[in-house]
């Protein structure tokens, strides 16, 4: 195997922006839209997913030479389902209200394509340390993206952030933001911004190259 040219920090950082699971890879969408109607729900969901991602990356990476490739998907799913069950009971013990708000979507973390994708694409082929950094980066990137969504939806849809009222009473809430459609629109909005930034950068690079060639 060729010596990796990226450092551990690189693995961490790429998950935050360049390969952000939500805005760039568009993976793991179901919980992103469903649980992001308030900032606190979104953040809790993001952190729960990040936890499962990191733990599963660590376990898959440590066992990568032990698990034969024919049964790898089945074992990965087994490991992921275990950690999701752990998170499920932990959240129930911490706060019943939060558990009711997140509901079935905690269990649905197990089918989040992001976690299985990282296990297959990265953790099974890299050392434990690098896999942990990868999990951390992707997890935090995911939680951050979820928070962006949740914050916008809560601010516009309920006039509050983390339950703290931001606008005075006369602010008409955009109730649609809390409804499912709002989730679609908000994510579309963020993706638009992302694409626009990417295009501007590409154009700037092309201009530079054009100038040099001329």
């Amino acid at each position, binding site marked *: 195997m060729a010596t990796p040219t990226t450092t551990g920090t690189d693995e961490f950082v790429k998950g935050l922006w360049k390969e952000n699971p939500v805005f760039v890879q*568009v993976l793991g969408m179901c919980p992103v839209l469903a649980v992001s109607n308030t900032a606190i729900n979104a953040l809790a969901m993001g952190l729960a997913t990040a936890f499962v991602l990191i733990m599963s990356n660590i376990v898959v990476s440590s066992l990568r030479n032990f698990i034969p490739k024919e049964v790898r998907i089945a074992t990965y799913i087994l490991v992921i389902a275990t950690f999701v069950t752990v998170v499920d009971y932990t959240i129930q013990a911490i706060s019943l209200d939060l558990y009711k708000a997140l509901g079935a979507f905690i269990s*649905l973390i197990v089918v989040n394509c992001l976690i299985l994708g990282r296990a297959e694409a990265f953790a099974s082929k890299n050392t434990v340390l690098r896999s942990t950094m990868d999990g951390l980066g992707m997890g935090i990137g995911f939680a951050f993206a979820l928070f962006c969504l949740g914050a916008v939806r809560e601010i516009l849809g309920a006039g509050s952030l983390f339950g703290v009222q931001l606008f005075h009473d006369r602010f008409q809430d955009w109730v649609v933001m809390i409804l*499912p459609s709002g989730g679609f*629109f908000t994510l579309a909005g963020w993706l638009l911004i992302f694409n626009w930034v990417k295009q501007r950068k590409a154009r700037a690079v092309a201009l530079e190259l054009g100038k040099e060639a001329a």
Partner: protein
Amino acid sequence: MADESLWSIFINASLVNNFVLAYFLGICPFLGVSSKLETATRMGGAVTFVMLVSSICAFGIQALLVAIDAPYLKLISFIAVIASTVQLVEMLIKKFSPALFRALGIFLPLITTNCAILGLALFQTNKGYSFVQCIVFALGAGTGFTLALVLMAGLREKLELAEVPDVTKGTALALMLAGLLSVAFMGFGGLGG
């Protein structure tokens, strides 16, 4: 426990609380497979079938787990059953319709990670549906999923020829469409109550 009529369960699952547009389940295939009308219909059919089988198995598993008092094994057993059902469906399709198998391609094994199927199993367990109610629920959910997929595919096919700003091309456009569809489906609220 639940005293909803069968008809109301069906309407609820397919229209009022559509799995894709209201519960956000099954978004990955929704965004991925909905660009061509034909693939969309077939995917919808495959998903409905897997939902039916999984629903029946989930009902049985839940009864078993309650009997042996091991509720914590619910998630693992459900996902194992779903994965096996998808394997089975894949083998069946490969045998009886190789053309369909080729058309669906990678999306067939991806049904395993389709949150809609696991979501279905979890919802029906939470609501405590009886066996017949589970079947109707699964049929309703599958119909709703297929409906959303087909509508989306139709819309996207038309939009392929329209002029849209560059920044919106791709997923952003699909999401905005989905948002509008979701608002439209809200009109079904209160039906079958």
